[in-house]
């Protein structure tokens, strides 16, 4: 048996030891598990999460109205339209992003359970967040990153994240391109006995619910009303899931809009494509697969289940995010992003279609710096032969060109048909469980997963399985 298979065969055993959640306790059938019970029993309450976060310098970030950008939105909108745009400046968290909220709870939990160290698999800001929390709580820390291609060329943004992780005293294991990173991660968990600070654990998601709640409470305090929409940069689904759950816990039923950078055409596991994208997260390469199949993660049942909470899903182009990143710096004096500005680009476009007495919230920003800065990314793209031009962003082809919008009115949010995503979700379930006979509990579960009715699920299953197929 080869090395990969022998580690993968022990996946469940390794993960169970490394996260101390008996996921299978929540299993209801071959298809279904009790998501809410898992969150309730294994996560932290929002009040507990707040207390832990306050103790380590996380949360209570500023909510800022982007007044100059709002003047621009107003100019571009039809009379009576142009919602007010607010930005939650999550870059002000310790370690510079909203990921600190997740890390604060996961690392606190690891410490409470007596683990000596923590491991996380992430090429994103979460690595620095976990490393910073481990520094505070005196735990050892290893971050596993996908970082360089077969030519040894590093993605500049990921180099910066590695630098930050090392600055907080953690160890970085850098991988070349490929899904086998997961095997390295499992091997490290197994040989060190450290805690799995998964992005997808109930702890991480519980930690992030405070962000959704703060967004609602901030807007109520500043404007006396609820936001109409919260726009969330969507990748693995945790940001969206937790922000929506937090808003709901604040009693707010606003529209939850997911936004991703459109990287269609690039393969996320391709060595050739790895350095041809300018965004390392917040893109469709994660956003689609994790919406369709959330349990592709590093836990048995992911707590990040975006399709349950998504009211709309929109895509923006790389060039549009870069333009809005420059606009945020020049108009609002805020150098942030770029990946965190994905939702800002979408919100800028969406605000123009909303009434002028409505409020739209962008619920995160992230720190920028060498490597992460959009100028670094554009420069890197040019050096890799990507053509940079000004024009219609709809003409951008990921991996070939980046088209900066000729005018701000050219920034658009392209709608994704959620029904197609729901069908893909069901197709994935049928692929994994080809011989399953659905019982009522399964249909209820699938309806919750897809944020649809049981009737819709029944009809869709018949459509997918062919006429004559009985669902109960």
């Amino acid at each position: 048996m080869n090395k990969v298979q022998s580690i993968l065969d022990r996946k469940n055993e390794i993960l169970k030891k490394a996260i101390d959640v008996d996921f299978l306790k929540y299993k209801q059938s071959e298809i279904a598990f009790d998501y809410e019970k898992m969150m309730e029993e294994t996560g932290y309450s929002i009040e507990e999460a707040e207390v832990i976060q306050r103790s380590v310098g996380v949360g209570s970030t500023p909510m800022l109205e982007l007044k100059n950008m709002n003047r621009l939105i107003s100019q571009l909108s039809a009379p009576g339209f142009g919602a007010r745009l607010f930005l939650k400046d999550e870059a002000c968290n310790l370690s510079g992003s909203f990921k600190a909220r997740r890390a604060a709870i996961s690392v606190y939990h690891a410490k409470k359970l007596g683990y000596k160290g923590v491991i996380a698999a992430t090429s994103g800001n979460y690595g620095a967040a976990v490393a910073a929390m481990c520094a505070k709580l005196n735990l050892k820390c290893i971050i596993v990153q996908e970082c360089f291609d077969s030519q040894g060329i590093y993605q500049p943004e990921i180099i910066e994240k590695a630098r930050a992780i090392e600055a907080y005293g953690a160890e970085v294991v850098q991988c070349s391109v490929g899904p086998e990173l997961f095997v390295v991660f499992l091997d490290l968990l197994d040989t060190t006995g450290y805690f799995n600070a998964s992005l997808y654990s109930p702890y991480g998601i519980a930690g992030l619910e405070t962000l959704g709640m703060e967004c609602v409470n901030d807007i109520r305090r500043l404007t006396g009303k609820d936001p109409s929409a919260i726009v969330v940069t969507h990748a693995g689904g945790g940001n969206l899931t937790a922000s929506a759950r937090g808003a709901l816990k604040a009693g707010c039923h606003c529209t939850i809009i997911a936004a991703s950078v459109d990287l269609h055409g690039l393969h996320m596991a391709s060595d050739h494509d790895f350095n041809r994208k300018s965004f390392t997260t917040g893109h469709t390469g994660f956003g689609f697969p994790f919406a369709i199949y959330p349990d592709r993660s590093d836990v048995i049942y992911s707590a990040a289940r975006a399709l349950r909470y998504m009211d709309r899903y929109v895509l923006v182009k790389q060039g549009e995010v870069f333009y809005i990143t420059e606009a945020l710096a020049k108009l609002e004096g805020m150098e942030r992003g770029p990946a965190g500005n994905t939702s800002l680009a979408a919100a800028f476009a969406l605000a123009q279609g909303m009434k002028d007495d409505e409020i739209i919230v962008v619920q995160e920003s992230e720190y920028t710096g060498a490597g992460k800065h959009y100028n670094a990314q554009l420069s890197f793209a040019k050096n890799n032969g990507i053509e940079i031009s000004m024009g219609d962003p709809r003409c951008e082809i990921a991996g070939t060109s980046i088209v900066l919008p000729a005018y701000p009115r050219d920034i658009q949010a392209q709608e994704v048909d959620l029904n197609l995503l729901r069908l893909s979700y069901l197709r994935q379930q049928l692929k994994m469980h080809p011989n399953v006979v659905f019982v009522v509990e399964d249909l209820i579960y699938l309806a919750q997963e897809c944020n649809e009715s049981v009737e819709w699920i029944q009809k869709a299953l018949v459509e997918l399985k062919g006429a004559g197929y009985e669902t109960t």
Partner: protein
Amino acid sequence: MLALKGDWILIEQIFLTSDQRQSNVPIDTKQTDFRLRIKGFLVDEKCVVGDDCTISTKTGRVIFGKLIDIMPNYDHSFGDYVVETVYIENQLRKMLSGGSNE
């Protein structure tokens, strides 16, 4: 280039050779080895770049690999001047001062 015991160095391991890679990776990726790069302090008395050595990492793991850099630093930057973005500021300022929205 010679590293001495205790020097901060970067090593590389081939975790999987190309023929050991998982079947579900794209063809271009499958043609390459899956490599790891890890930093640590040299445990051996000395080692030259390209030779195998043992390091002790920040978490105290003792691991083996090929020395590829001695006292590695960070030189990532804000990139070269990107002339294609210059118009954005001018355009936005003009719009906000009451000029055309084009």
